[in-house]
């Protein structure tokens, strides 16, 4: 099988820091690929390079066999790649609904939408509320609340809900449950499984090993800006994975 | 003169001592006549909108007449017409409107003439050296407001230099002109403009300045280069500090105008108009009432009429 998303030799430097050092990457159709690694290993840099948020200094990316060169996240979104960044990428002063539909707002049907370009707020609000309820984020009291007034976890929930609602080809989640509670994390994992069941592959960056081993089909171990190895969670234990990523054990030759 | 009569004075700014004097004159005359005076001013020279708003306020306020030194002589005409239609007497002070008969009357100095006098004086003082003069022109602003243009062009005419377009400074081709620079009419600008032109040509020996603060600034620049004694500075206004600067040798000669007189005459005219509708009359032979201009210097030059510093001090902005 051909990878749906493939990267070769990605390099990204920030001044003296080399965040990505000739890094390779493969995502296969329909799979959940976990990316694990130490803090600062370059995981976020990798998915930023893949999703157009930064333009890599070297290397190339292929989507479904075609070479692509995303220069902005909008390019990637147009191709159906949806990303939840670690920084969440939300406009703090705008409402939850505004944020969820940012860049793909729904317009009213008929004249008002077509000619007056009026937004269909009730519909957007309803959809936003539904998505959040699906994630079990029930303490949100007001869908028109500014995002900056949400708790850390609520904010993350909104970002995940947005990606799940719109991703059509690939969904990338950079530590989606970091700030979430037990219940909310659970919902996100269920959501990830739902999405895979819809046939959409997912990239999941996480430091939560039990979660990774629970849902991932394959695990990409990232170390010092490179892909160290890819392992099958059925063949290795969590201890092995942690040992690889911290350098305590040598990576298996593949 | 009647109870309840009120008049407005609208000046270009009220930070220039010239307009301060004008206001003092108007206030004194108004008090003498027992009428109320409201004064308005733009924020900066050229602030036209504030003047329009002031005229509107005067109409709303039910004033009998308006004295105005217009920042924009033709643009103000619309508002002035509105005021006259509402029955107010409008008198232009210091600066004639365009056209001049847009106002009921004009009490003014002839700014072109003011420039011409200092130009003639400078040329006569240089004598045989005039054809080799190196002239610096320190103007008001790049927007070239009319006072600045009139004085500048008057000076050049008086000096004997071909004007090019008389509505515009800076288009002259005479090689004696080293350059024009702008001063904003204050000391700071005067000094910087003088420094710039000295850097272009250190042999400058004649300096025209738009007004006396600019002249004082130019003098500081010359002084810092040790050139203060061999350069002629001429200016316009004849304010008390300016005349004092003529006495001290900072300025060679200045054209004196009489803002206090303009204002007091203006108030008298409004009082008369309010009483029985009398309209003011012009100076015979001119289309405005000329409040006069005099050259103040202690080094009179042949063929240029002037008054002494002592006389100038007595009259300064009287």
């Amino acid at each position, binding site marked *: 099988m051909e990878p749906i998303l493939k990267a070769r030799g990605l390099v990204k430097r920030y001044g003296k820091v080399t965040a990505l050092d000739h890094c390779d990457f493969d995502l296969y159709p329909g799979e959940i690929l976990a990316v694990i690694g130490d803090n600062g290993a370059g995981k976020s840099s990798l998915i930023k390079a893949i999703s157009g948020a930064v333009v890599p200094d070297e290397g190339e990316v292929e989507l479904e066999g075609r070479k692509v060169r995303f220069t*902005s996240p*909008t390019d990637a979104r147009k191709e159906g790649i949806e*990303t939840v960044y670690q*920084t969440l*990428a*939300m*406009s*703090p*002063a*705008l409402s939850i609904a*505004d944020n969820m539909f*940012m*860049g793909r*707002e729904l*317009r009213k049907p008929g004249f008002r939408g077509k000619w*007056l*370009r009026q*937004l269909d707020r009730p519909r957007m609000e309803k959809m936003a509320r539904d998505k959040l*309820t699906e994630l*079990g984020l*029930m*303490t949100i*009291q007001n869908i028109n609340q500014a995002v900056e007034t949400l708790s850390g976890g609520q904010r993350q929930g909104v970002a995940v809900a947005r990606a799940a609602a719109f991703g059509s080809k690939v969904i990338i989640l950079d530590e989606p449950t970091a700030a979430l509670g*037990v*219940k909310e*994390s*659970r919902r996100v994992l269920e959501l990830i499984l739902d999405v895979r069941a819809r046939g959409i592959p997912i990239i999941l960056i996480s430091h939560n090993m*039990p979660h990774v*081993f*629970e849902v991932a089909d394959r695990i990409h171990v990232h170390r010092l800006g490179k892909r160290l190895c890819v392992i099958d969670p059925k063949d290795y234990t*969590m201890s092995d994975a942690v040992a690889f990523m911290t350098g305590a054990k040598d990576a298996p030759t593949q | 003169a009647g109870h309840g009569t009120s008049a407005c004075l609208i000046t270009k700014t*009220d930070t220039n001592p010239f307009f301060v004097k004008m206001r003092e004159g108007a206030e004194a005359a108004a008090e003498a006549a027992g009428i109320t005076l*409201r004064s*308005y*001013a733009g*924020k*900066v020279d050229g*602030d*036209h*909108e504030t003047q*329009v*708003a002031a005229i509107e*306020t005067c109409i*709303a*306020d039910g004033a009998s007449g308006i004295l105005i030194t217009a*920042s*924009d*002589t*033709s*643009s*103000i*005409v*619309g508002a002035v017409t509105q005021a006259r239609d509402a029955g107010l007497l409008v008198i232009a002070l210091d600066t004639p409107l*365009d056209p001049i008969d847009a106002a009921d009357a004009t009490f003014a100095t002839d700014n072109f003439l003011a420039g011409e006098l200092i130009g003639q004086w400078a040329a006569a003082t240089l004598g045989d050296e005039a054809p080799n003069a190196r002239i610096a022109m320190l103007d008001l602003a*790049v*927007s070239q*407001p009319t006072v600045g243009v009139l004085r500048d062009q008057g000076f050049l005419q008086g000096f004997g230099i071909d004007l090019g*377009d008389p*509505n*515009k400074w800076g288009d002259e081709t005479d090689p004696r002109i080293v350059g024009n620079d702008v001063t904003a009419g204050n000391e700071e600008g005067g000094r910087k403009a003088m420094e710039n032109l000295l850097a272009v040509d250190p042999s400058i020996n004649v300096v025209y300045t738009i007004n006396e603060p600019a002249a004082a600034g130019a003098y500081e620049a010359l002084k810092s280069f040790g050139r203060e004694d061999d350069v002629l500075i001429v200016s316009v206004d004849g304010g008390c500090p300016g005349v004092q600067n003529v006495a001290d040798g900072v300025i060679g000669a200045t054209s004196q105008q009489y803002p206090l007189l303009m204002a007091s005459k203006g108030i008298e005219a409004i009082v008369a108009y309010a009483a029985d509708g009398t309209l003011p009359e012009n100076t015979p032979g001119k289309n405005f009432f000329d409040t006069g201009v005099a050259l103040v210097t202690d080094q009179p030059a042949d063929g240029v009429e002037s008054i002494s510093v002592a006389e100038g001090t007595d009259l300064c902005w009287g």
Partner: protein
Amino acid sequence: MSGDADNFEAAVKAKGAEAVAEFKDTRKGVLATVQHALHVNPALVPLFVLVASIIGFGLLLGSKFFSPFALTLILQQVQIVGIVAAAQSLVILTAGIDLSVGAILVLSSVVMGQFTFRYGIPVEIAVAFGLMTGMICGYINGWLVAVMKLPPFIVTLGMWQIVLAATFLYSANETIRAQEIEANAPLLQLFATKFQVGGAVFTVGVVFMVLLMLVLAYVLKQTAWGRHVYAVGDDPEAAQLSGVNVRRTLISVYVLSGLICGFAGWAMIGRIGSVSPTSGQLANIESITAVVIGGISLFGGRGSILGALFGALIVGVFTLGLRLAGADAQWTYLLIGVLIIAAVAVDQWIRKVSA
């Protein structure tokens, strides 16, 4: 499966049965309603200040101030600042600032005038050229800000000088007189057209200002573009990551701002009758003042454009009120200074109380 001995996550695996958790809202009554209204619609705050100041001057000055004539006079006096403040608001909402508004306004009006009178072009087309000039200046600003990523303050400061100097050079500092315009190209004075409603006098310019504000308020609140303007001003990086075309949004804002300044130039011809290259000098600072008094944050992304209209009116009310109360020019400036601070302090205070 995670190998937890205590499989605690199972406790939350059953979903659907949960009710929405709710906090209680304990505040009640009129005060709470007012607080909530202000909280939801922050433009009400400057409106409140405006109404209070009108009432204040009305009590102080009586019918002299509180007449249809005086009140509509204020509208006429603020129309230019109001229109420019609309342009300024858009730019400030994107966390920018436009120092070139005054210069663009003047250049547009000079182009309209000179094209009509110097080149004899039909006045309708000259007006179109004038508006286009504004848009082009705006486009250059926008391009420098969005594509070259230069700070808006510097870009528009530079443009201000460039456009102003270009205006003087092009117009040779000549004014086109009102009489001439009235006779040959009355369309240029369109915005001065008056109509009376009772004792109140409205001009096309005033109506234009109000309509412009209302339309922009609608667009900002009810269209995707409007939401993008806020998002870009709030956090451009987040906006970019969440799929807003930041570059296009920014350029469109500056172009629209330039166009509005072109209209302001046209309105200026109506207001002063003539075409004068020296007008509009204070438009920058006055429009920014109106915007900030109106409660729009200079850091972008927060505030309502109607606030800018109220901000302009607040300054207009104070200026006319103080003049009618007989304060002389310097005292008026001083008091306006005090009142600018006071207006914003009151605004801040109300916001805090209504938070």
